[in-house]
């Protein structure tokens, strides 16, 4: 039998109640998926289910509800372990988001890094993946080196390899740039960094919605993401770390659940993963995130990638027909993100008019000021497609964009 490679778009759109909303009197066209993706009914239901049936604190009570909640929470961890192909479920730590995950790791290296050690980050990073390392360098005296990009917005890998040396301790890159959608060759970066015994953290916030991640195949040391970009609710993040590194770095937050023994003189830390999950976590959010990842896998990331790529190609072709329109970021491997400007029109102006047409886009620096500085622009308009978007929506968007340009020039 021939394998079905197409997704059933009508059925999928039915799974997302928000897509039926009207905004400013128009049908919502949601093209800001790279910031947050929408939530299927199944995931929303699981949150309601949790609060209506088994809301209780986990790991603490011997009572029935607490057992049930703990089981569901830990089951979610196993789902993510399988999804990322991690060796052990305790190598998956739940956090409040990518930002939290990165800060947790950065904090962990405070005592390990020494003066004049070197950290490599890329010019493509989200502010989340710049600021924590700057803070770490201020405290330790380590230095930041930056992998430059070329005119297409791609990392210059030769330059990266030149930056590597025996002082390099850590390398941080995003898997996919949030501003440009370019997929970075992380497997190669990880391999090269490991030749110098450097530890690699990959920010996968923009990759996980579009592709399957295999942490063993990548041999990555830390991989982080937020579940609000993969059909889950806001406020839940994933930190995958190799067991040996998670054991090496100290806890980030102190409190309940993360300790083994507490006396006022000294506490001993609990083992993984509890060491990093102090206090009551976002229980319903973690459980719902597990439902979200199941939903994504039920459609299949390969099909999703193929469909989104069709949308990307279609929209790119349509956009390039507009006079004066410039797209930032060209690469053979891109996710369904297009960052652009039209002539000298300010991105904020276009974004505001598109909003009036019910079209949600992102405008501005996109939390990636170093990229905007590189291209010497105040920002861009970014449209990012998800598997529930359609070519018809792209047509509507192009029509609205023409009207906006007319009004603004």
């Amino acid at each position, binding site marked *: 039998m021939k394998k079905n490679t197409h997704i059933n778009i009508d059925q999928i759109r039915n799974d997302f109640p928000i897509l039926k909303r009207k905004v400013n009197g128009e049908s919502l066209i949601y093209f800001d998926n790279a910031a947050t993706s929408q939530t299927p009914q199944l995931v929303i239901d699981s949150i309601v289910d949790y609060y209506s049936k088994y809301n209780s604190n986990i790991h603490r009570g011997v009572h029935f509800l607490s057992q049930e909640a703990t089981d569901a929470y830990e089951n979610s961890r196993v789902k993510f372990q399988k999804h990322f192909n991690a060796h052990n479920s305790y190598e998956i730590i739940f956090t409040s988001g990518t930002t939290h995950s990165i800060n947790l790791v950065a904090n962990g290296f405070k005592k390990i890094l020494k003066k004049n050690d070197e950290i490599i980050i890329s010019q493509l990073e989200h502010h989340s993946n710049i600021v924590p390392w700057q803070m770490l360098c201020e405290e330790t005296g380590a230095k930041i080196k930056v992998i430059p990009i070329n005119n297409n917005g791609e990392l210059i890998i030769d330059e990266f390899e030149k930056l590597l040396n025996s002082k390099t301790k850590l390398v941080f890159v995003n898997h996919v740039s949030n501003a440009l959608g370019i997929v970075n060759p992380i497997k190669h970066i990880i391999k090269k960094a490991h030749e110098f015994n450097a530890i690699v953290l990959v920010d996968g916030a923009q990759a996980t919605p579009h592709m399957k991640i295999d942490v063993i195949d990548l041999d990555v040391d830390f991989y982080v993401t937020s579940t609000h970009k993969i059909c889950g609710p806001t406020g839940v993040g994933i930190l995958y770390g190799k067991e040996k590194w998670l054991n090496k770095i100290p806890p980030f937050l102190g409190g309940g659940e993360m300790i083994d023994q507490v006396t006022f003189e000294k506490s001993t830390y609990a083992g993984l993963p509890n060491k990093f999950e102090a206090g009551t976590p976002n229980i319903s959010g973690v459980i719902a995130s597990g439902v979200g990842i199941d939903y994504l896998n039920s459609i299949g990331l390969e099909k999703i990638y193929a469909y989104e790529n069709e949308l990307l190609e279609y929209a790119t072709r349509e956009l390039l027909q507009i006079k004066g329109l410039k797209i930032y970021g060209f690469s053979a491997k891109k996710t369904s993100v297009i960052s652009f400007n039209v002539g000298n029109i300010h991105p904020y*102006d276009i974004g505001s*008019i598109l*909003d009036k047409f019910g079209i949600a886009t992102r405008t501005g620096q996109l939390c990636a000021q170093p990229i905007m500085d590189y291209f010497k622009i*105040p920002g861009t308009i970014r449209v990012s497609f998800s598997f529930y978007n359609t070519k018809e929506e792209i047509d509507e968007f192009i029509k609205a964009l023409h009207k906006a340009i007319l009004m603004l020039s």
Partner: protein
Amino acid sequence: MKIKQIQEEIIDEFAMFDDWMQRYEYMIDLGKSLPLIESKYKTDDYLVNGCQSKVWVRAELVDNQIVFKADSDAIISKGIIAILIRVFSHHEPNEIIEANTDFVDKIGLKDHLSPNRANGLSSMIKQLKLYALAYQTKINDE
């Protein structure tokens, strides 16, 4: 004219249009008559914080009345600040400080008022009022 009267005048002007597109086009037009800030003042010192586009504003006290000048790198922000300046410029500081700003709602600009950091209207109003407050304090001290 009092601030309140100018606001009513603007509300009447915007009421003539029946859709948002015409209102936006009118607002963009109003931006073209904005009293422009001299380019030497287009520096970070005069930037309004909290707008996604750049908006520069400067105030002077002329015969006890505040005169505002401004500019923006975005056309819509330029229209918005032009409307605000038409309302607030050439009044005594106290009148500006006490002025109510409900009128922005009535001319269909409410969505620019949200505390979303990308929207600058509330920051602009705050900045104009801060200038008024600073001059009022100065007058009181003299």
